[in-house]
């Protein structure tokens, strides 16, 4: 059986093609102004890698904030439901799945059967999501990818308040004026973000194993800060930004059964 999952994210569209329980193709494009077209392109890319044609796909499930714009989909699944499925598929012992994306952070609790039993979402605020890191990197005149490795070199923590991106930025400016070193400031940024995300997870209840997915899972600075706040090991799959699409492809597979 061949299925596909399309994750219509706020920043990029991700596609996963699944054949008999194995990932055979992935595709990714920027969502841009025409997410439907972006989805088509990502699908074409994924199918090319999988050496398949669209007609060979049995079922396509879409997820993500723009899921209704994935024109070729047969069904939809919520982002939370997709993440939970992917987390438990990748790490069968996973009971808490955290997804930190560009605009949103969320955490899902799963039961022994891999079914989502509870979830939380960060409350209308980008301070717990990837957009925060981007804004802060700009404030430090650095590239997004440089910030994480830099933070690992910090010798101590200098707390800032990440109640929102705007105030976070003014806090960072305060640190710059205090002539704090760049590694310390970088760590402060990730600590603040991890504070937001971890308080949300503690509200949900932290049940190991803990899996982190979403684009921000690739940022070593954030992962280090989150690990410190949660006090547990965090499992991260390869290419964590494809988790939503994978979950959707898994849902598609169970829907064709």
């Amino acid at each position: 059986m061949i299925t596909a999952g399309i994750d219509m994210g706020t920043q990029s569209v991700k596609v996963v093609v699944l054949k008999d329980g194995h990932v055979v193709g992935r595709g990714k494009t920027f969502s841009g102004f025409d997410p439907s077209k972006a989805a088509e392109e990502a699908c074409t890319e994924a199918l090319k890698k999988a050496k398949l044609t669209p007609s060979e796909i049995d079922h396509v499930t879409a997820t993500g904030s723009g899921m209704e714009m994935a024109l070729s989909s047969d069904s939809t699944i919520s982002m939370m439901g997709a993440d939970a499925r992917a987390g438990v598929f990748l790490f069968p012992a996973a009971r808490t799945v955290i997804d930190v994306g560009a605009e949103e952070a969320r955490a899902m609790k799963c039961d022994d059967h891999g079914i989502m039993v509870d979830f939380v979402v960060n409350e209308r605020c980008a301070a717990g999501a990837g957009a925060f890191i981007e804004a802060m990197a700009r404030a430090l005149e650095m590239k997004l990818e440089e910030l994480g490795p830099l933070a690992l070199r910090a010798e101590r923590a200098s707390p800032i308040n990440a109640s929102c991106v705007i105030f976070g930025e003014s806090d960072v400016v305060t640190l710059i004026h205090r002539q704090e070193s760049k590694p310390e400031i970088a760590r402060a940024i990730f600590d603040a973000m991890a504070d937001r995300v971890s308080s949300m997870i503690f509200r949900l209840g932290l049940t190991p194993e803990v899996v982190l997915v979403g684009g921000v899972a690739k940022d070593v600075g954030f992962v280090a800060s989150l690990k410190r706040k949660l006090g547990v090991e965090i499992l991260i799959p390869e290419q964590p930004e494809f988790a939503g699409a994978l979950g959707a492809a898994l849902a598609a597979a169970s829907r064709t059964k």
Partner: protein
Amino acid sequence: MKNPNELQKKYVPDMGQKETEDLRNLIQSDSKKTIADYISRMKKTSPNRPKAMEYFDEIANLFGQRQKELQAAKESGKKIVGYFCSFAPIELILAADAIPVRVNSGWYDAAKIGDRVVPVEVCPMVRSTIGAKMVSLSPYLELSDALISVSTCDGMTKLGEIMGDYKQVWTLPLPRVKDSAQSLSYWNKEIRATKENIEKLTGNKIDKKKLRSSIELVHKATKAFRRLQELRKGPPVIMGRDAMLVNQSFMWDDITRWTQKTEVLCDELEKRAQEKIWACPPDTPRVLVTGTPMIWPDNWKLPSLVEEASPQGVIVADELCSSDRILNDPVGVDEWTMDDMLHAISERYLMASTCPCFTSADGNEDRINWLINKVKDWKVNGVIYYVVRGCMLYAMEYSRVKKVLDTINLPVYYLDTEYTREDVGQMKTRVEAFLEMLTARIDF
């Protein structure tokens, strides 16, 4: 009574007449569209909607028939008493031949006007009610001769004070520790003082006979109300939004007529249940909503999302002072003496309430018990805990409710929002994920 024009405004800034009128006309015309839109969406969700709902669709027009009736009643010399919390003893208002009407505002855009008086951190229902008054938007609030304000939460307490800029306000101090030895007797004295206030306003003495007949009138309404909720225990014969509109319209409709129309609706629903005509598929996830009151028309956001979602949910019960809590508890009179009737009224409004403004040795145990009973008897699959920003007491009680529901393995989702239309997309994502989760659990 003081002429409102002579009142020195303590809170509210002066607004130009033109701006006031422009804002009122703008919000009013938008509101008429919102009302029509929500009604048509309710019809769409439920293609075989009960015929008896037609009456409630009419009465849902806040600028329609009921406004004219109240206007006419007022011109014939009747007094209208507005109230903000469901603690106002409507039996006393009715016994003085006056008309009770609840005047909380559900208008989103009015909240922005209220922002000129209080900061945005304040509960949007309070801000909106202030804003509605500033531009004379709410027909029922405008027609009120006096207002009953109850010192429940902080927002409501100050709302009454701010309304003093416009109207005669009677503030009832509510004792917040329910099981204290003094609370009931204290509250009983306040209820008696309210009786005197109402008598003074109306010029009508509330005697034993009149009070008994008004208590009996509300008893009949309670009977119809409970019959409707009872019918929601089984497979869905009515969508939650429809039932909530029926419940809420009690707040401004003529009580005798409302009772009769609700009984007609229940007759129809009973027949449908026998014929197994369901409002939605019987395996639709059954949702209970609890938290901040949701006021018609604009703040119909959450119930609409739940019942229009994919997968769909159906609200079978709630714990809202704007819906299932309105008429749940009858005034229990032992002897029809004046003293006993007043005591029974005091008891009904104080002791039966599950408002989070209360605490006691067990905390707000009454609310927990209500929720557990509702969840069991109405076969609820999941609870949505709804809080608007600034609604401190409901937000603070969440952890306790969550713990209790966890022990009976019932999913609950905390959903916070504002008086705004802009977050509908985000809310939809969350509501649909929650319903998807409930569906998965039902299927499993």
